[in-house]
């Protein structure tokens, strides 16, 4: 290959990387701006006679939280049982099956409940948010709100953001309880431990910090999922195909952001 062609190829690659980097930074900046603007509307909305409506937040809370309870229940109980099975199997080698409650309690509250709930909400509500905003952009509904003097961030972004920041921690607490209950059922059946003894040991094993660790993470996951959904929805182009593309992108980015943030959180807090 001639040197000039190699040089042109390298420049092309460098240009593409540069463009993607700039686009990525712009998206992060846009997400940060949306977060700040939503908070400003929540604080100053009433004074400006444009409040973030509680009814809209409650409606989103129903959609994001209450409607997700069945699937969160199924996944949480499955995770609980799975952790109990694996825990007993591992500890049996040391003759320490009784200690499984400690492992299950810490794993569920610190990691599995917030992680599984976050991933579930990213797949369910993050994608729905991206699709909704994307479809509204294509149908000029966002433009219509703007020309009606209705700020789209206040009307479309703030309610799901706040709803998610309330409901994801709530779902995480619920997932904690259900997963621990599921694990208790299996441990009771396998080790002959009564449910009251099991829960006594769980309470003994857990500190308030362990529970707050999971809940704290879930608040950050909520903000990430909501903002990633909105940013992707707002960047839609190309009709129905474009909506499908940004929806997939929102789910992939949302789950990736949750897992990476979880690792950073664990690194920063747990060590």
């Amino acid at each position, binding site marked *: 290959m001639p040197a000039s062609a190699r040089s042109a190829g390298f420049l092309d690659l460098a240009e593409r990387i540069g463009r993607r980097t700039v686009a990525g930074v712009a998206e992060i900046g846009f997400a940060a701006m949306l977060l700040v603007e939503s908070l400003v509307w929540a604080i100053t909305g009433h004074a400006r006679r444009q409040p973030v409506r509680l009814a809209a937040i409650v409606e989103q809370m129903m959609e994001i939280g209450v409607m997700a309870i069945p699937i969160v229940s199924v996944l949480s109980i499955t995770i609980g049982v799975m952790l109990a099975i694996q825990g007993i199997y591992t500890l049996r080698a040391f003759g320490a099956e009784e200690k499984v409650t400690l492992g299950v309690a810490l794993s569920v509250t610190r990691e599995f409940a917030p992680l599984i709930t976050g991933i579930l909400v990213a797949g369910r509500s993050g994608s729905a948010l991206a699709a909704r905003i994307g479809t*509204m952009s294509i149908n*000029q509904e966002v433009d219509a*709100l703007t*020309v*009606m*003097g209705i700020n789209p961030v206040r009307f479309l972004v703030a309610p799901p953001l706040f709803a998610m920041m309330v409901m994801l921690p709530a779902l995480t607490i619920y997932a904690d309880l259900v997963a621990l209950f599921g694990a208790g059922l299996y441990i009771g059946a396998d080790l002959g431990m009564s449910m009251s003894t099991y829960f006594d040991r769980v309470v003994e094993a857990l500190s308030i910090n362990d529970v707050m660790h999971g809940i704290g993470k879930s608040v950050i996951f909520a903000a990430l999922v909501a903002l990633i959904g909105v940013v992707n929805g707002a960047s839609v182009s190309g009709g129905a195909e474009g909506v499908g593309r940004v929806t997939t992108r929102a789910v992939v980015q949302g789950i990736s952001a949750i897992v990476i943030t979880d690792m950073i959180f664990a690194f920063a807090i747990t060590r």
Partner: protein
Amino acid sequence: MTEATHPGPKQIDGAPPSAADGREVVIRVRNLVKSYGPRTILKGIDLDIHDREVMVIMGGSGSGKSTLLRHLMALEQPTSGSIDFLGRDLCRMSGRDLYDIRKRMGVAFQGGALLSSLTVGENIMLPLREHTDLDEQTMRVMMRLKLEVVELAGFEDLIPSELSGGMLKRAAFARAVIMDPRLLFCDEPSAGLDPVVSSALDDLILRLRDALGITIVVVTHELESAFKIADRITFLDRGEIIMVGSVDEVRNSRSERVQNLLNRRAEHVTLDVDEYLARLTGENLPADAP
């Protein structure tokens, strides 16, 4: 009327805004330029829109009429130039002032742009809910009044996906005028509709102007519709205004570009060799390429 076969930015709409009939200028556009990178879409638009007139903006695809409309609605910032709404420059206005101004504008978008998650009635009441302290019953009365005007009485509980194309557009008109705006924008009101429904919408536009006394700006490429509703017509071609005049003035225009548009004759642009080669190789795209 002003007509130009080789228009420059200052050649149109020379009539003083209030000299002829004493009517106020609601929108005044001066030297409006919009560029996206090397492409210039609007090339120095000058335009006055008078109180209580129906101004139709016409032009072929890619002429810049939709871009002009988005600027008039303050949805985009121009590269340069000014747009005054009742004497206040939309391009240099704070967000809060723009919010106040927008309460005095209504827009009926091409596809209706009703929020799909709300019923027709909730859509129409949305501006009232967001901008006024009216009680629910009063808002409902006002919503039903507007639905009566657009002949959609009894449809308030349907969701937008349950309406036909023509009904969607009429519902969009009802929402656009619920705040009794001073200015109404209509984007392609006849697009995608059969001639009967299209004609009924034209009648509705004229009825709204007469009943509510508002200024209406319509963007369309439907000649028949434009001739029926327009007080004046603005012809846009390749980002320039080539003519502003009454229906008769437009019909009798001797401008070749106007006649091409009226008679649906395609205009073939001749490129010089260098420009043609530049297009083929994708290099040095001319800054004013259409």
